[in-house]
């Protein structure tokens, strides 16, 4: 089981180039999870102790907007990383996540990984580099969304 997880993690683009000893540590904090359709993975404001690699399915990152209800800001699917609130205090989810399709994922214990990163800063640096890439990608995408590129020309 542990070996299978190491295999999946080691092959994932996100962890490309990560030393084998670190893959083992990361795998030690991971488990397989499944969610049904329209199932809540986490709620805005709850403790952010985990993050996920989506292996199959589609997940909406959402925010409760008064008068509008839950509004999808973005979706993440196969191969994507879900959640980085576990990395930064106060370790609370800024947004909620709900499946739009049945979803399979790897769930990582963020609290456990934070502890490992404190013990070994090289591992911390490797993980932060990778999450910074994801955060940058999302920021770029959000900026493009804000441009409303497909709207009628001014």
């Amino acid at each position, binding site marked *: 089981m542990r070996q299978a997880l190491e295999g999946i993690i080691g092959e994932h683009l996100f962890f490309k180039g990560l030393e084998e000893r670190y893959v083992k540590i990361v795998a030690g904090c991971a488990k397989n999870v499944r969610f049904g359709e329209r199932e809540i993975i986490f709620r805005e404001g709850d403790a952010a102790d985990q993050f996920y690699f989506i292996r199959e399915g589609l997940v909406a990152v959402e925010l409760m907007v008064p008068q509008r209800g839950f509004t999808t800001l*973005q979706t993440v699917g196969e191969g994507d990383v879900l959640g980085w609130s576990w990395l930064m205090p106060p370790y609370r989810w800024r947004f909620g996540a709900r499946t739009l399709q049945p979803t399979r994922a790897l769930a990582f214990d963020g609290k456990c990984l934070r502890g490992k990163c404190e013990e070994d800063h090289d591992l911390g640096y490797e993980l932060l580099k990778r999450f910074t890439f994801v955060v940058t990608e999302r920021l770029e995408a959000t900026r*493009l969304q804000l441009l409303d590129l497909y709207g*009628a020309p001014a």
Partner: protein
Amino acid sequence: MAPLLENSITTGLGVEPMLPKPYCIQRLRHETDDTFTIELAPENSGETFSFLPGQFNMLYVFGVGEVPISISSDPQDVRTFQHTTRIVGAVTRGMGHLKKGDVVGVRGPYGTPWPVQEAEGRDVVIVTGGIGLAPLRPALYHLTAQREKYHKIVLLYGARTPEDILYRRELERWRSKFDLEIQVTVDRGTRAWRGSVGVVTTMIGRSPFDPSNAVALACGPEVMMRFAVMEFQRRGLASENIYLSMERNMKCAVGFCGHCQYGPAFICKDGPVFRFDRIEPIFGKAEI
């Protein structure tokens, strides 16, 4: 740098390139709130109209003006052809008020086509956003009609909202085929929307194609294409395998007036479809 003007072609440049021919509206269908498709046929029923995927026509609404619009129909159909456009000015607004039997002037077809022959034997990845799907639709008709000549065919399409998705029925039909990978995303979802939300260019990174044997076709807002190119290059796709349809203010369509100058080229004559390595040095430059 590869020569910019190498792929210039001269279709539509007949004896009277500035003289529109009359075509009858067969059908006008509203696609979304601000887009519509008109179907045209020659006034003389014996005539035919041939074009290549990616080419455009100059459409003249009598008494209002003339605009360049890409051809959006099946290139195999030589009896009629279609244009899908957004209402953005007086001419397209006037065109949207026309009805079956009305006549418009047509000059064309003009411009360079999508490289559908060059793409044979390879994966084809199409990235498009908004109304940019219209000029790629003829290419999709061609690719699906000649499916056996291509490896994977991937369409990544971004729209503003679910209500702004063009050609819904066709997308659903194509998606239901097992040999086409179609992914649609919207910038803003609605409560009823159960699909992807996010910008289309983020789909390139995980889309199923082999960068060492693929051709990418992109059409949409120029900013979208800039990010699409970056993503393709990050995947390892060479610049000579990326094709973009560029847009500028085209007036004459035959390279006389200079309105659509793009560096050393004219979009109307040398484009609109460019191989990316040929425009790479000037692409994205604010001064061009």
